[in-house]
């Protein structure tokens, strides 16, 4: 029996090859794009116009959002159909800050009340708007609002052992309820029109090219940090327990782990990441409205992750960018009337031909190429009839 010497400490590096490539690309992009936007003449072939910058910035926040889904779906098996809710809450927290920064520049010129409150005849700022004029408070709420919702929701759901599709559907119900609630003008978040017409962020004009670039670079940075954080989590012992929960939750309990706590930690981290993504998204697209809570949006996030490759992190980010690029591309020009065919066809094709998503299938292919035969080598003896 040829027992090959085993390397006990063989643990995947914090950043695998694909992780390093991923981060390198992010760094390259966040250096190149500003340079090509600012330093290159607009008529040059390599000039990156500002509208591309904000487009890319948007994609990056989607990528972070996808990453947050992959953390819980890919590694813990929680198929959250309500991740958009955390994204939107983060976005609203940021939006509220931006609204307060408008000051007297709103159409009604009210120094305190946002425009929509004025025309609904509100006399004073509701209590839950207090503090949002201060950036640190708003930044805190970007994390706390989704985090707390995830904590409370997850605490109940995981303790009650709501799993699988049941969990998926109640997350969907959650985001749907929030959608309806935020639609209500009485809620005090601007109803269907949401929050918009922002002017400044931290004193900088939100529409200035410089601000856009900074937001773009921040998005890239957030994505990079989010990736490293997720990667760190999933390869820790904690992360192994997560995967074990995904595959055999009861067995994990019998082994002495409190599965609900593990899930809760992952869920809250994921919600906060989504919240950060939302907060970076809002100043770049200039509006946050309740449609971000719509269940279809959350399903789309899942679709991005599936396209890129569930449980690969890099794939989730890639999927988000690719699908959204496809959307941008297909919705213009001659393809516009057929873009749903294109996108729908893309999804079907990916499931059929790249069953593990783009990155997942690539990993598998790479694995296959480098795999040596694991099952013990050649038979020790040639068959011979007994006697």
């Amino acid at each position, binding site marked *: *029996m040829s*027992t*090959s010497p*085993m390397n*006990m*400490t*063989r643990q995947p590096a914090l950043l695998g090859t694909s992780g390093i490539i991923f981060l390198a690309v992010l760094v390259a992009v966040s250096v190149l794009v500003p340079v090509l936007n600012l330093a290159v003449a607009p008529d040059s072939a390599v000039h990156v116009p500002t509208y591309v910058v904000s487009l890319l910035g948007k994609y990056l926040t989607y990528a972070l959002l996808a990453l947050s889904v992959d953390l819980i779906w890919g590694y813990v098996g929680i198929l959250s159909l309500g991740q958009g809710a955390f994204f939107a809450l983060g976005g609203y927290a940021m939006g509220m800050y931006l609204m307060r920064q408008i000051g007297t520049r709103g159409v009604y010129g009210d120094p305190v009340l946002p425009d929509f409150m004025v025309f609904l005849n509100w006399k004073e700022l509701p209590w839950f708007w207090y503090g949002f004029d201060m950036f640190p408070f708003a930044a805190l709420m970007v994390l706390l609002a989704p985090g707390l919702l995830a904590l409370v929701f997850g605490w109940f759901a995981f303790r009650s052992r709501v799993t699988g599709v049941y969990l998926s559907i109640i997350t969907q119900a959650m985001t749907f309820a929030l959608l309806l609630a935020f639609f209500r003008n009485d809620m005090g978040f601007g109803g269907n029109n949401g929050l918009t017409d922002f002017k400044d962020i931290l004193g900088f004009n939100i529409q200035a090219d410089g601000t856009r670039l900074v937001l773009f670079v921040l998005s890239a940075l957030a994505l990079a940090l989010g990736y490293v954080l997720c990667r*760190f*989590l999933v390869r*820790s*012992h*904690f992360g*192994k*327990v997560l*995967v*074990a929960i*995904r*595959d*055999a939750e*009861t*067995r*994990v*309990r*019998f*082994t*002495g*782990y*409190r*599965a609900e*706590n*593990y899930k*809760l*930690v992952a869920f809250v981290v994921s919600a906060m990441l989504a919240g950060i993504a939302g907060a970076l998204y809002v100043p770049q697209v200039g509006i946050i409205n309740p449609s971000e809570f719509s269940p279809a949006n959350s399903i789309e996030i899942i679709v991005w992750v599936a396209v890129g490759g569930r449980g690969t992190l890099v794939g989730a980010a890639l999927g988000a960018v690719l699908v959204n690029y496809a959307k941008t591309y297909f919705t213009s020009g001659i393809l516009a009337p057929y873009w749903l065919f294109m996108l729908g066809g893309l999804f079907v094709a990916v499931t059929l031909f790249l069953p593990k998503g783009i990155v997942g299938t690539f990993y598998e292919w790479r694995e296959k190429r480098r795999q040596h035969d*694991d099952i*013990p080598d050649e038979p020790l003896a040639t068959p011979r009839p007994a006697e």
Partner: protein
Amino acid sequence: MTATATLAPATAELATAEPAPAAKKELTEALLYLDAVTVTFDGFRALNALSFTVDPGEMRAVIGPNGAGKTTMMDVITGKTRPDRGDVFFDGGITDLTKLDETQIATLGIGRKFQKPTVFENHTVLDNLRLALKGQRRALPNIFRRESAAARERIDEIFETIRLTEHRDRLGGALSHGQKQWLEIGMLLAQDPKLLLVDEPVAGMTDAETAQTAELLRAINANGHSVVVVEHDMTFVRDLGVRVMCLHEGSVLAEGTLDQVSANERVIEVYLGR
């Protein structure tokens, strides 16, 4: 071999129900104490006023016809199934197991091997053992946990025992049935519980492996662990050489040495056959 510090106060608090005086002595001495445990499923009695005790350091073999309630008994002990009636106490009556959930019970030091082998299919064999290895169970500390040299050694040891060293980097799900059985035994060893509940460990093993498993369990028991093992393989039960208990229709039909039990007419009739 003790429950983690955090759990101790909680369990002390939970053990409020005073057992009846008659049973008191047995209770305070027993590691595991079941009294009049009844479990019904939609009217079907799987356990019927089952009572027995397991002493610290004891190894006990459980036999009995298919459907006698052996697995259900383990389900009750490990918190998977709640009894309709009856008491289940652990550790000399300190802890009422019926009030705890699976995780708490596992943390107390009760480990289990399932009848149908269950391992973490998407983890390597090595990670399966790492996950099972006794140690920190809480979520946040495990984010920053590093594997100690002692742990590595212990895992190597277990690999020796279960003879899966050459499979250590394969996924749990890719093992054959018997290999999974061994892996699960290995995981049980890694947990290092006070009480091992082993459900049909030698199913699908060759005769030689069966003998080895018996030896392994004896060794573990000799180390001070209590063991309850369910098996239908009489050779194996004989190899264990411990007290045997035969269940039938949810309660104890006979108890004693294997020879005593297998001489029992009822046991022959319902279980061994003529």
